């Protein structure tokens, strides 16, 4: 990994599709399904990023379950500066922390409205954006 002119790590901007714990998540996104790990023992949702053992009870078994795709905006920001060439033409753009009712939170984008229209507590639902190599879950306001 080389560094930038100020010694910082380069900005990658893409998910690691082959990370063993996260592979099923990215595969489901490709099929436009939002999924999470549920503990086979305590039945709670792990949250993100995916991991090997249950973060609540350390049980070793889990299953991937489909989520409702609903969410609530916990907080939102608008990037007015680009840290990555791919975002140069997109500023200002929204980034939100979206809480999922089943448990867990994602960093994502609320799309389909202007950044200033995004509000904390706003109900949102998942939409999928397909790229050549991967699919990202994003969110749109619930009408």
């Amino acid at each position, binding site marked *: 990994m080389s560094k930038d002119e100020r*010694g910082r*790590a380069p*900005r990658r901007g893409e*998910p690691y599709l082959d990370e063993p714990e996260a592979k099923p998540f990215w595969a489901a996104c490709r099929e436009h399904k939002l999924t999470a790990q549920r503990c086979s023992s305590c039945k709670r949702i792990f949250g993100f990023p995916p991991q090997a053992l249950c973060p609540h009870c350390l049980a070793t078994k889990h299953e991937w379950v489909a989520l409702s795709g609903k969410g609530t905006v*916990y*907080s939102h920001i608008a*990037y007015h500066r680009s*840290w990555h060439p791919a975002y140069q033409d997109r500023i*200002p753009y929204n980034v939100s922390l979206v809480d999922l009712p089943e448990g867990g939170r994602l960093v994502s984008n609320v799309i389909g409205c202007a950044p200033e229209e995004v509000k904390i*507590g706003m109900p949102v639902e998942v939409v999928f954006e397909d790229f050549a190599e991967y699919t990202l879950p994003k969110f749109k306001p619930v009408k």
Partner: protein
Amino acid sequence: MGNISGKYCIVGIGETLVGKRPDATTNSLHLEAIKACLDDAAVKNTQVDGLLTNQPLNDAHRSYAVKLAHMAGIDPLFATDLALGGATPIAMVQHAVMAIDAGMASTVVCVHARKRSTPDPTPGHPIRRGDEHWEEPWGHFAAAGGHAFAASRHMYEFGTRSEDLAEIAISTRKHASLNKNASMRKPITLEDHQNSRMIVAPLRLLDCSLESDGGGAVLVTSAERARDFPKKAVAILGMGQHHPHFSLLDAPTLTTLGGKRSSEMAYKMSGLGPKDMNFAQIYDCFTITSLITLEDYGFCKKGEGKDFVKNGRITIGGQLPLNTHGGLLSQAHLEGQLHITEAVKQLRRNEVEPERQVANAQVGIVSGHGGSLAMHATLILGAI
């Protein structure tokens, strides 16, 4: 378990010139800080038996502390790198105390330097914060973004405004204007703050700290040995840490951070409380960080930070001078290493420009904060 309060001291400090240091390297800045610290304490490198450092940000490798020790002619009985981001400088002092208390070392230098303003030609591999690949695909790249999430949420929960955050930027800049070793010394106004460009809304350019070159170090030893050193020793009265989450994805809240429990531990250890503090050097990577920490440290109730920072209260001469050196916002961003050295100078007295000296400085609190608003460490220091 004995209380360590008052049993260990800081007996030496070193600060390099900060700002743009094009001819320096990360390694040279560390050595410069160590030398300044040992000179201040009037000790030889051969009398130091412990060294702690931060993982170097632009060349992460195993045990930089051991490398640095031998570069500085120190044969350490105790050495390691700590990795708590901006909480590291304070954590180093805490680990030094623990090592000396355990009998593993007697005289420990804690050093951190950073080269982030001008390029460091030294080859190497930069460190990552971790879990960026669960943020970057959605365009979340910067520390400014993480802290903007906290600001946005604080504004929602408590009605805090950008103009309130400006109070911290303006007061901190005033202090920097009085500090010869500060990068940004031109005073700013509310208008300047509000007209500064948006970086990640709701944070503007003047809510953000600097990218700096520089370094600092402190020397820790026992109160008994401290008597043999020429400068006034500063006592370590209380210490605490708390790390309530790792990433934005598992943060139970972004408006109360590790500072709450970390400061509670430090207050308990010292037998002191917020009202006893004559000044506060509070980590200020962004203005919102200081606002939340002032609340978490009990200087005001949660949500009342916006009123607390008004009317000169946090400016030198006010009730609680905040970041009397100019902080990360206006002096230099060295992960808070200089928050500690500044606190020591204030408590020794007559070591800063007279206009910057806090009258009757007897006790002060220092905070460190790192990662995605994740790590927190506290020190309470007192004059002897």
